[in-house]
């Protein structure tokens, strides 16, 4: 539970050693390099910045590789792990790969080309298939489809609506004595496809007649006899399909090299990091200066190695009192688990205490109270424990699973106290509703009692928040504030709680009979203490007085905050009640074979749903109680994350 203390480090080295030294620092990944401004008097001595062209070049290579990788991942047939992690590879192996960068870029180009060719082949197949579809009605036409005339006869292709009978038009043509013949080639459910042969001496009249029976001219830009064209197209399609298969199998073959291509991608990512860092450091004619932060515990080793390998001067000092340094948190299992939740609110700043361990305890407790079912907690804990033990995980995933593990354990404990194992499964199975498995009490039977405890926990949580504020003040050596910003509030709020204790349901009579008189007697004194202490930072006697009066408003905030913890009851009850309803529905079939089958189904689906919706609710509400009710009391936040120059890779992790 701590913010790691940092030292300022200032390295001056020879320009010719800049690249190797930066690369060395990048491998170590411990120095958070800061932007170093150039003093105006040194403007012509030092320069900053890097070659944007090289950056663009690296970017275009990375874009190419990244596209190729996404294709290769699609065709990679090796088994994919459940959780995506970066692959560990040896530095030697990594370096042996990156010698062949150009080859792999060539490979990536080929991959993309092959992938695009598959798309082209598919487009071509689509086009050919469409052509076949268009030509199919004309399969039986045995002249080229684009032939529009012979010596004396014009040929017109078209459709006639299906309901016009062939006899009708043959007869009509005969009767009118038109020099024209209509040959039906095929018909579908709407149209008859016909070829009309019209003598060139008189086009007008036959066309006029044909129009009257809704003859619709069709023109095609194919050349050749339809039947043969279709045959040819089919052959081309099967050839293209073979091409696609070939392309796919070569992609699968390329996919064996996915790992190497990924390593090359990361090589460029690393070199980009190395290139862009030049924007922060000062380079002169012969030397360069790096300014940065380094965790205290890393100083000795890093400086030793630097001085051994390079000609350089290293200067290390403590941060000044008013100097902000980047924040790196170091926590045990508990504190580590909740950092993700805290970071979503803010990083603590470098001068305050890391609240994570305390937050983790309350987060898990509140999560447990809201999910409040030992069965769900058991499932959660077992799944999380298995994932943690069996799978390789990235840090962010691992800490989330850890959080879920401790939350799950808290859920088991709370569930056992409430006697809720998958709702009221135990009494339901034994078909005896009077069985009480609660180690403490069943909140459905006595919600008031849990309401009281929820509020009490809320008060404790808020008090811990004030305690953290005091601790931060001690850290900053503001001892007076540490006392006056905390103790008067404890006194004031406690008296207020005593005063209203009789209104809170389920408080035993003898308790509030003792507390209320104490509250009545001491509340005015506590109010006076607040009045006298809370305006002390204001100027002038009136400022101090009004500052004190304004502080009373915090009592209202406090009440609101405490009531907000009633969600611990509400969400907990919701889980329990819905769980019982599911069991009730499921057990309706009784102890028969169909009954057991329905029970299993309803149990799995119902409890699955109940778990999902309530776990989500518990997660967000538990976070909210930290953010609004707890952090508000002490957390200043606004820390800048420690981000050292390191090998920021996407696919691989390089091991020494």
């Amino acid at each position, binding site marked *: 539970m701590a913010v790691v203390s940092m030292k300022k480090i200032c390295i001056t080295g020879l320009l010719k050693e800049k690249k190797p030294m930066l690369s060395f620092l990048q491998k170590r990944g411990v120095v958070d390099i800061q932007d170093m401004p150039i003093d105006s008097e040194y403007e012509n001595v030092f320069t900053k910045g890097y070659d944007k062209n090289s950056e663009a070049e690296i970017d275009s290579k990375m874009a190419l590789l990244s596209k190729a990788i996404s294709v290769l991942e699609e065709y990679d047939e090796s088994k994919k792990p459940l959780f995506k992690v970066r692959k560990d590879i040896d530095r030697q192996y990594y370096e042996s790969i990156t010698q062949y960068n150009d080859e792999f870029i060539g490979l990536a180009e080929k991959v993309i080309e092959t992938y695009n060719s598959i798309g082209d082949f598919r487009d071509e197949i689509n086009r050919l298939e469409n052509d076949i579809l268009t030509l199919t009605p004309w399969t039986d036409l045995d002249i080229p489809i684009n032939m529009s005339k012979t010596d004396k006869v014009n040929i017109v292709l078209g459709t006639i609506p299906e309901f016009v009978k062939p006899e009708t038009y043959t007869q009509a043509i005969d009767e009118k004595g038109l020099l024209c013949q209509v040959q039906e080639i095929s018909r579908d459910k709407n149209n008859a496809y016909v070829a009309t042969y019209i003598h060139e001496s008189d086009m007008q009249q036959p066309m006029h007649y044909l129009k009257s029976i809704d003859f619709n001219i069709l023109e095609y830009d194919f050349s050749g006899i339809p039947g043969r064209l279709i045959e040819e197209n089919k052959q081309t399609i099967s050839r293209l399909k073979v091409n696609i298969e070939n392309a796919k199998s070569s992609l699968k073959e390329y996919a064996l090299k996915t790992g190497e291509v990924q390593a090359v991608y990361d090589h460029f990512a690393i070199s980009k990091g190395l290139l862009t860092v030049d924007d922060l450091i000062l380079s002169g004619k012969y030397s360069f200066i790096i300014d940065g932060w380094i965790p205290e515990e890393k100083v000795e080793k890093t400086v030793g190695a630097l001085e051994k390998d390079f000609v350089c001067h290293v200067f290390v000092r403590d941060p000044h009192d008013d100097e902000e340094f980047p924040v790196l948190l170091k926590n045990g299992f508990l504190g580590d688990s909740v950092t993700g939740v805290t970071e979503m609110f803010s990083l603590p700043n470098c001068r305050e205490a890391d609240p994570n361990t305390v937050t983790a305890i309350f987060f898990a407790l509140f999560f447990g109270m809201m999910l409040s079912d030992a069965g769900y907690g058991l499932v959660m804990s077992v799944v999380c424990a298995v994932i943690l033990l069996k799978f390789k995980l990235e840090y962010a995933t691992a800490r989330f699973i850890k959080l879920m593990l401790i939350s799950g354990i808290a859920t088991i404990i709370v569930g056992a106290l409430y006697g809720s194992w998958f709702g009221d499964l135990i009494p339901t199975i034994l078909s005896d509703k009077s069985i009480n498995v609660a180690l403490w009490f069943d909140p459905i039977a006595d919600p008031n009692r849990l309401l009281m405890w929820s509020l009490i926990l809320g008060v404790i949580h808020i008090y811990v928040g004030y305690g953290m504020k005091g601790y931060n003040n001690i850290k900053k050596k503001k001892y007076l504030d540490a006392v006056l910003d905390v103790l008067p509030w404890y006194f004031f709020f406690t008296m207020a709680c005593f005063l209203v204790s009789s209104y809170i349901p389920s408080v035993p009579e003898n308790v509030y009979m003792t507390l209320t008189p104490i509250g009545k007697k001491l509340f005015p004194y506590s109010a006076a203490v607040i009045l006298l202490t809370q305006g002390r930072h204001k100027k002038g006697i009136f400022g101090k007085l009004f500052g004190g009066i304004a502080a009373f408003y915090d009592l209202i905030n406090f009440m609101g905050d405490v009531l907000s913890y009633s969600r611990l009851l*509400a969400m907990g009850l*919701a889980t329990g009640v819905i769980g019982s309803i599911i069991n009730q529905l499921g057990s309706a079939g009784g102890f028969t074979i169909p009954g057991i089958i329905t029970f299993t189904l309803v149990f799995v689906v119902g409890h699955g749903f109940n778990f999902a*919706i309530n776990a989500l609710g518990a997660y967000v509400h538990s*976070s909210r109680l930290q953010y609004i009710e707890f952090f508000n009391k002490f957390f200043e936040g606004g820390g800048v994350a420690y981000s050292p120059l390191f090998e920021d890779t996407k696919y691989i992790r390089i091991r020494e």
Partner: protein
Amino acid sequence: MFKYVLENNLGDVLAIIGAALCFLLAGSGAAKGVSMAGKVGSGVIAEDSSKFVPVMILEALPSTQGIYGFVVAFLIIGKVGGLSLEQGFSLIIAGLPAGVVGLISAIFQGQVAVASIGIVAKRSADMVKGVVLTLMVELFAIFALLISILMVGKV
């Protein structure tokens, strides 16, 4: 007929009406709130499918009012069986906070959820801030649930 109902178990009928009312109001409010967020959310996912999880979380938030209505309705149903007239009336009234506040707060919460999905559309990382803003509305539904539970408990 009326006399018969009056003399026998009108109380039970009233309690059933109370349970129905409570869930009808809260449930339809939750449905409205969720659907509002869902519609906007689908638009965001259409642009960027990687935002499914934050959008889903925000969309699910207004559904809790439905659950609260469900819980209170269930507790009221549990009371049914030989209730007197006053008890029946009391149960109708006891269900109203969870029902009415649930209805209204779910719709308002849906509106905040819609706005928060706007945050996610721009920056997924700020999802939590959206969640916190949305949860502010939820507090009142939680209070309503509590008041309802406490009242049902007293009948």
